[in-house]
C-alpha cells in the first residue's frame, strides 16, 4: 500500500490555494472564484525516491481579518504549502503570521512558500530583493501560477522533497 502523507494548503483568502490544488491534481484552472468554507481533501499519488506516496492535500479556507485558520486542521500534517498572492503584498504578511502561529501551536513543520499569480506581471509587487530576503530567512520559495501551470509541479515537489528528508 502506498504511503500516505498529509499536506495542508494555507494562506490568506483568494491567493489561489484551491486553484493550485486543481491545477496540480486535475490539470485544470477554474477562472471563477468560489471561496472555500471548511476543508476539502484531494489526493494525488506520486513517486518519492522510488516509493509510491499518496498525498492527501487539505485545501483549507483562507484567512481574512476576522477568521483565522484553526490549527486543529493542520494537526498531524507532514508539511504545509503556504500560498501568497504576488500581487497583494499583505498576503505575504499573512503567510508569515500563519506559519508562526502553526509552529507555536504544533511545533516545527516543513513549509514551502508559493508566490502565486506570477502570470500577472504588471501587478507583481515582490521584487528580486524581497525574494532574496525571504530566502535568507530560510524560506523555501517558489514562484508559480495556477493559471499557466508555471512552477506548480516544482512547488509541490519541493515540499515533498522536504518531507522525505523528515520521513518518520
Amino acid at each position, binding site marked *: *500500500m502506498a504511503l*500516505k*502523507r*498529509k499536506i495542508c494548503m494555507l494562506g490568506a*483568502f*483568494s491567493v489561489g490555494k484551491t486553484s493550485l490544488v486543481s491545477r496540480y491534481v486535475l490539470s485544470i484552472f477554474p477562472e471563477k*472564484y*468560489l*471561496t472555500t*468554507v*471548511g*476543508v*476539502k*481533501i484531494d*489526493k494525488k499519488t506520486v513517486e518519492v525516491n522510488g516509493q509510491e506516496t499518496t498525498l*492527501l492535500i487539505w485545501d483549507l*479556507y*483562507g484567512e*481574512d481579518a*476576522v*477568521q483565522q485558520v*484553526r490549527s*486543529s*486542521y493542520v*494537526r*498531524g*500534517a*507532514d508539511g504545509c504549502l503556504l500560498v501568497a498572492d504576488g*500581487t*497583494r503584498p*499583505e498576503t505575504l504578511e499573512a503567510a508569515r503570521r500563519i506559519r508562526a502561529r502553526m509552529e507555536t501551536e504544533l511545533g516545527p513543520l516543513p513549509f514551502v512558500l508559493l508566490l502565486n499569480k506570477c502570470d500577472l506581471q504588471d*501587478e507583481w509587487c515582490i521584487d528580486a530583493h524581497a525574494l532574496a530576503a525571504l530566502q535568507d530567512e530560510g524560506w523555501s520559495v517558489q514562484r508559480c501560477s495556477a493559471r499557466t501551470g508555471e512552477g506548480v509541479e516544482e512547488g509541490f515537489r519541493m515540499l515533498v522533497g522536504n518531507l522525505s528528508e523528515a520521513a518518520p
Partner: protein
Amino acid sequence: MNATPLPPTVRIYLEALLLNGRQPAYAFIAADGTLQSWGGEMDRYLKQPLHKGRPADDQIDALVGLLPLEGENASIPHLMTDTYRSADLHLVAEAGGAWMILLDSTVEVHQQQTFQQQSNDLLLLKARQLSMLAQLRAHNEHLEAILNQLSVAAVRIAPDGTVTFLNAYAERLLATADGTAATGRPWQQLLPLDSQAAAAFAALLTAEDPAACARVRLALETEGALRHLEADVRLDPRDPAFRITYFYDISELQELRGRLNEKSVFEKMTGKSEPMLRTFQLIRDVARVHATVLIEGETGTGKELVARAIHACSPRKDGPFIVVNCAGFTDSLINSQLFGHKKGSFTDAVSNQIGVFEAAHGGTILLDEIGDIPMNTQTRILRALEQREIIRVGETEARKVDIRILAATNKNLEEEVKRGNFRLDLLYRIRVARVVLPPLRERREDIPLLARTFAAAVAAENEMIAPVIGPDVLAALMAYPWPGNVRELRNAIEFAIIRCRDGMLRCHDLPPEIMTSAENEQHPDAPAPSEKAQLLEALRAENGRRDETARRLGISRATLYRRMTHYHITEADWR
C-alpha cells in the same frame, strides 16, 4: 452494527442530534488504530463500505496523521465528505481508543459560503481600487478621468470641507434628495450623518495619515433607502491638502448578514415538534388568502417571524413588509404614524407625512402589541380594514390603500374587550384567522435544533465557525423553563458564544440563571420518579426498540427520546 456500547453522554448527545436532523454517524477506533464498530448514518458520508479490524486511517482519509489521539480530542469542522456533504468530524478520546463522530453541516456551509463569498469579493474589489490609486501618482493629471472609471464612489474634498468633485458612481450612490449638484457645498450637506458618525468621519478627513486609519462605517439615508457605507480616505496625489474619500457600499452584505440568521430561523422553524409543524401548515394556509390574521403568543415566541413568514409566502411577497410596534404611543403619535398627517395638524406636525398604511401599499403591515392601541385609533383601523381607505390626520379626503394587516398580541384580547379596552368589532375583524404560538417549554424537543440554528447564525454574524454544543449544555437548555421563550434562548446562545473560547460551548459559558436552574432541576419540580420506572419497564419489555416502546406507552417517538434524555436513560439501564 454496534458492538461497542456507546458511553451514556455520547449516546444522549447523538440521540438529540438524530432527532434534529444532524444525521450523526459514529465509529469506535481501537488504540491500535483499527476500526472496531460503527453506526448511525455512515453511508451518508462515505462512499466505500467500511471494514472491521482494518486501520481506520486507511479507510477514512481525514484521519491520516491524527491517530493515535494520545488523549487529546480533535475536531475538524466543515469537512467536505466523499458524498459532497459537509460534516463536522469529532474525535473523542476514550479508554481503549477513540470515538469518531460525523455530524452533517451542509446547510450551514452553504449559508456561510454565500456570505463569505460576498465579503471576500468586496474586500478584493477594495484592494484593487486602492492599488490602482497608488499607481495614480505617475499620471496624476488624469486623476478625475481615472476616478470616473472606478466602480466605487469617490469624492474629492477641499481643506475647508467643500466638495470639489464627485465621480459618476458617487453621484449615483449619494444622489442628493433635492437633485442639486453637491459640488461646491460642504460635505455635511452631501452626507447627512448623525453627530457621532459625522465626528468619526471628520476625524478621518483631518487625519494626517488617513491611509493608516481604520475605515469608518456610516449609515446614510439616500432617497428613502438606508445604505450602509464604508468610508476610506486618501490624500489627493496632486495636492495632499485635499482628500479623496472612497465610499464602499456594503448594504447588501449588511442585509445578507441579517438574512443569514433570519433565514436559518425561518427554515429551522420547519422543525420537528408537533405544535410547530401545525403552525407551519397554518402559516402556509393563511398566506394564500387575504384575510387578516391575529398572531397570539407569549413574549419571545417569534410572532414577528410568523408574520414575516406569512408575508413571504403570500402573493404580496414582493411588496413592503412593515412592523409597527403599537405599545407606548400616545393617541396622536400612533395615529399619525399609521395614517400620516397634514402639516400643522398638531404641534409636532411640521411637514406633510405619509403613514405606514400608505407606505405599505401593495404589501403587509404587522401591528405588534395591538392590545395596546388606544380606542380612538382602533376606530380608525377598523375603518381602514372595512373601507380599504385611510384619511391622514388633519385631512378630510380619503385615500385608497391596498394592504394586508396582520396583528400580534401577548394579551388575551377577549379579556381586554370585557374590560372595555378593546373594541369587539375590531377583534372580530382582525381574528378572521388565528395563529397561536406555543411557548418554548411546550415544545422542548425543538430546543437542540433551535440552539444549533442560533449558534450557526450568531457565528455567521460574527464571521466565525459555529461552535459545537456540548451534551451538558444541551441538557441544561432542555431543563430550563424559558420564560422569555425563543428570544431568551437566542440571547443565551449569543451570550455563550461570545464567552466560548475553543469551538465548543460548555455549561459554564451559559448565562447564570440557566445553570442555576439546571442544578436545581433534580429537586423541587422534578417529575414523579414512577415515570422513569415506567419508561424503563417498557424499554425492557420491547428490548429497547424505540418505535414499539413509544407505541406501548402511547407517546410519540420524539417524546420518548425527550423523556429518555430527561431521565438520562441509557441502554445499560434497561439491559
